[in-house]
């Protein structure tokens, strides 16, 4: 997207050695960016750490927004070199792009208004209104597997879903627990929402890469392995979820198995 035009103007990204990284711009705590300020969040920090392991300085990284529905395209078209954007590894996506990682295991969960007591899991969503993001798996998951009578509205970003949830137009927002936690913790909505707290899927967050880029994949995997082993990833997670009532699923995260590149 064109945010890069502005990045160029701002002088971001040095000569030959620069790398373009797709992140979310609108997910506080994961990937968030305001204007030309440096982006923040867990994904961003992991990306920096991984790239540091691969020998890139921070000023060699160009950040680009990669909204959920456009991620595969951006990789296919060469708009980005890699994507750290709450990118769950799925078979369907694996057909079009390659993944390294995962560097984190999230689980899909549900966000509701604090005073909502009837929704305890995805089964309770029949006949209720659910919001999610265009082109993302979670919403389809819920409809296909738990509640075929849910009314689904898809938006470009989660922030719209939150406003809908706040105003009562939807009863629940679904996506990965860590995203929901970040959203619920933001200043604007402090105290208004709660995460139901029963993740019903496994969402392995991978690093999106162009199809066939085995070399980079292996480099990234190597870096991730190192960062997991030395506890950096846990530290980064803790730093980014500070003050939020959120516990990562320890069982899954303690022994992550990395994908084999080039399959």
């Amino acid at each position, binding site marked *: 997207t064109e945010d890069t035009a502005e990045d160029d103007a701002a002088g971001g990204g040095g000569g030959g050695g620069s790398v373009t990284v797709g992140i979310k711009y609108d997910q506080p705590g994961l990937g968030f960016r305001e204007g030309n300020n440096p982006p923040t969040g867990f994904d961003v920090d992991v990306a920096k750490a991984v790239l540091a392991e691969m020998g890139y300085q921070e000023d060699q990284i160009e950040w680009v*927004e990669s909204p959920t529905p456009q991620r595969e395209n951006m990789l296919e078209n060469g708009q980005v070199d890699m994507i750290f954007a709450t990118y769950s590894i799925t078979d369907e996506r694996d057909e079009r792009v390659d993944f390294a990682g995962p560097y984190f295991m999230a689980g899909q969960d549900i966000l509701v208004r604090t005073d909502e007591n009837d929704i305890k899991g995805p089964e309770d969503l029949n006949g209720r209104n659910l919001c999610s993001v265009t082109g993302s798996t979670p919403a389809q998951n819920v409809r296909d597997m738990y509640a075929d009578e849910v009314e689904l509205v898809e938006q470009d970003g989660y*922030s719209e879903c939150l406003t809908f949830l706040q105003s009562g137009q939807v009863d629940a927002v679904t996506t990965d627990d860590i995203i929901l936690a970040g959203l619920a913790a933001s200043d604007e909505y402090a105290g208004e929402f709660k995460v139901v707290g029963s993740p019903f899927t496994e969402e392995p967050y991978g690093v999106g890469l162009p199809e066939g880029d085995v070399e980079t994949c292996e480099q990234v995997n190597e870096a991730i392995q190192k960062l997991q082993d030395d506890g950096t990833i846990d530290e980064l997670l803790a730093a980014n979820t500070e003050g939020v009532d959120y516990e990562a699923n320890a069982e899954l995260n303690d022994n992550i198995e990395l994908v084999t590149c080039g399959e």
Partner: protein
Amino acid sequence: MSTQYVLFDAPGPRSRRIITILNILVALIVIGVLVWVYQALAAQGQMSPHLWWNAINTNAWVNYLLPGLTFTLQAAAIAVVSSVVFGLFFGFLRLAPVRILRWISMVIVEFFRAVPVLVLMVFLHFFFSQYLSNVIDPRNSAYYAVIVALTLYNGAVIAELVRAGVRSLPAGQREAALAVGMTTTKSLRYVEVPQALVAMLPSLVSQFVIILKDSALGYIIGFSELLRYSRHLGAGYGNIMQALVVAAIIFIIINSLLVQLAQMLSRRLSSRTSGVTEVGIPGIAPIAGDTVEDEATETRAQAIIQQDKRK
């Protein structure tokens, strides 16, 4: 009561009373609706000052609105220039004495006028990032898709304006030029085209309004223009409504200024051309059909060119 209404007679005392009552009624209704809207919004907590303030404070301008506006204006400005070039070129081609040239340009112009701009944009976006990634940085493909789509569509509209501009000149202008001994080319060059261009100016300016508005279609293909930036603003501060309202107001202000410029030009220039400087209905391009059939009935001016060339 010096204004004349086609539909209405000059009012007498009873009509004047009715008018006064209606005026009061309308004022009350407008005030009522405004109060209602205000209360409905306030009930939603949407009127709290910090939400609005966050949509117009320095942070909003520096990080969101101005960058977004810059991209919007930049894309629109480039599209304006390039569509004028495209439009002039194909417009004159449509007046060319060679039939096949007129045909080719007609097909091109009609095609781009019939296809929705958004469809063009979506296609070009994919096309650029797929096939032209070594020419155009794929990260900018949405930006270029917006510019090129706007150029093709508006260029086609301008091509029609050019043709209509030359056609709308009274035949007398050409005849007078011929009568002082100019050749048809000289007449076109010194008399007709200058006047057609002058006559077109106001319409060109109002075409700028269309381009500016259509640049917001880029939002749908992910071009970060004013609308997308203000959505980001709203996302970041929980004030989507306020942010979008501010974006809409920015569009309204810029476009109103352009419309006023167009109207001023149309008044100023009307004495400088024997063409028609009317702006028409800004925002709507003339239809496809009315040009297809024109091809058959050549313009009077063209007939004279042909006449001079023949025999």
